[in-house]
């Protein structure tokens, strides 16, 4: 009797396999979150280092740093560096999250996703969304830390910061995905991290303002910084976090908020499209 029933459900399920890409994306995303929580050392790695940077640079450079702003309104370095540190946390977390694609591949989990009856975008979306949410959660923890240096949030500003951080994290996770997809070792990723992703962050206005190309005032540096999409992420966060300060307290030619939204949205769309593209090509490289 039970055997008969089992055979029936068997036949039922065969016909019932109707792929649901959104469900699949959701399950892959929740898997990222569960794995993250179970690997606690990742939590400290992604949030600890930026906070240490923030404190050390903040206090260390505090005296020598002076924004070219109106007298007496210039913020201290701890305050200046705050949005950049938030972006660094988003970057680190996003990157750690996408490194997991290399582990998924090496440990074999990815294979079973690749042969499932799903469009590839659901794999990308699940993976990127998972990384984004982890990054966002860590970013919010850091934001709360900002209360200790006198940051003030309103419901509106916090929502806007959350939304904007989400976009940045999404763009960076997708960027990490594009890089990680073809790599077979995490060492390779670390190399790209130090020659590409860290400089990208350093040149985002997180560390020094874009308008004068750093203390050297080099024009090429300023151009690079203008061309860096992350500059607009940092600038947008700077505007949103210091929404209550007079404009004069901010670096002189900080991009307008609308520009920041547009560029960051475009950055996220572009990196997502790129990652969709790289997973679409089925090659023997999928195996490694």
């Amino acid at each position: 009797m039970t055997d008969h029933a089992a055979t029936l459900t068997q036949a039922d399920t065969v016909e019932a396999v109707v792929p649901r890409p959104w469900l699949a994306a959701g399950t892959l995303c929740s898997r990222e979150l569960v794995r993250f929580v179970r690997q606690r050392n990742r939590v400290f790695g992604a949030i600890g280092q930026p906070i240490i940077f923030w404190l050390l640079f903040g206090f260390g450079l505090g005296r020598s740093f002076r924004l070219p702003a109106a007298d007496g309104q210039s913020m201290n370095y701890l305050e200046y560096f705050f949005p950049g540190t938030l972006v660094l946390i988003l970057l680190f977390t996003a990157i750690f999250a996408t490194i997991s694609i290399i582990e998924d591949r090496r440990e074999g989990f990815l294979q079973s996703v690749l042969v499932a009856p799903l469009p590839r975008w659901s794999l990308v979306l699940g993976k990127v969304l998972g990384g984004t949410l982890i990054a966002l959660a860590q970013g919010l923890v850091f934001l709360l830390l900002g209360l200790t240096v006198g940051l003030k949030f309103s419901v509106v500003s916090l929502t806007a910061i959350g939304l904007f951080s989400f976009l940045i994290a999404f763009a960076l996770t997708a960027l990490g995905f594009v890089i990680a997809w073809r790599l077979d070792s995490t060492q390779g990723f670390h190399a790209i991290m130090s020659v590409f992703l860290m400089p990208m962050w350093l040149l985002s206005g997180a560390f020094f303002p874009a308008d004068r190309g750093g203390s050297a005032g080099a024009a090429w540096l300023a151009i690079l910084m203008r061309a860096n999409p992350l500059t607009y992420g940092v600038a947008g966060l700077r505007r949103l976090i210091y929404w209550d300060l007079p404009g004069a307290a901010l670096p002189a030619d900080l991009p307008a908020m609308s520009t920041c939204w547009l560029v960051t949205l475009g950055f996220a769309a572009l990196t997502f499209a790129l990652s969709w593209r790289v997973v679409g090509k089925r090659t023997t490289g999928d195996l490694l």
Partner: protein
Amino acid sequence: MPPAIETSQLVHRYGERTALAALDLSVETGEIFALLGPNGGGKTTLFRLLSTLIPIQQGSARVLGYDVAGETAEVRRRIGVVFQAPALDKKLTVDENLRHQGHLYGMSGRPLQRRSDEMLSRLRLADRRRDLVETLSGGLRRRVELAKGMLHGPRLLLLDEPSTGLDPAARSDLWDYLRQIRGEDGVTVALTTHLLEEAEKADRLAILNAGSLVALDTPDRLRASVGGDTLTIETDEAASLAAAIADRFGLPAHEVDGSVRLELPDAAQWVPRLIEALPGRIESITLGKPTLEDVFIARTGHRFFDDGP
């Protein structure tokens, strides 16, 4: 009913190296089919092509009547795949692994729960369902893989080297389960193996060597095809001894990787005659019933376990 698997002139290359050379193969529905071959023989490539992991380059393959290249989505809905490398998430529990797998196949809620419960009890995993996969033994993990591969009720289960790393008891469990799903559910099972004794258990098997089909039949018929028992003679001078035997007795002696082999209907009678006739030239002589290895040797002219040229 269309064959479970049908390939036609299937070719696959990795750069310069040809892994599959114009393979024609047909697997009937409801059988356990083994792809036997030495490492590098092309069986894992065939497995990857059929499981849609790598794209078809040349020729065609149909799975359950659907074209693997053109109707990939239809194929994927209907096959279950168990990879050689474990495809489980070790940081998750058995239950969580199955839940994610179900979601990937569009299952959710009560039906998924019911089906998971059923798979776990059939594979005797129910009491380990809340354990993290990383805490399970190799045999248990393979059972979770099977539960995962069969979760959505596929009509064809593809397995790549399923008994690798399993102890004899776990191997026997595996085969019990494969026979069960073939018998009760009518699922076709196709597996790759480099173990001769495992291929013996299949209903039919194909022997692949250097990307080509060497033999395809039931294990019994393949063994019978060798034509009698086999004599293996160990010696220092295989080539000249083989020539001498062929010359003096008119027997089909050939050299295979440093020893002399003969397949004869009345092999036993020849043992004393050969030893007498060739004093001092024979180190040892072994009489055996033909095995799949003999089939392999008879068809390819070299041993199954070849350490390369």
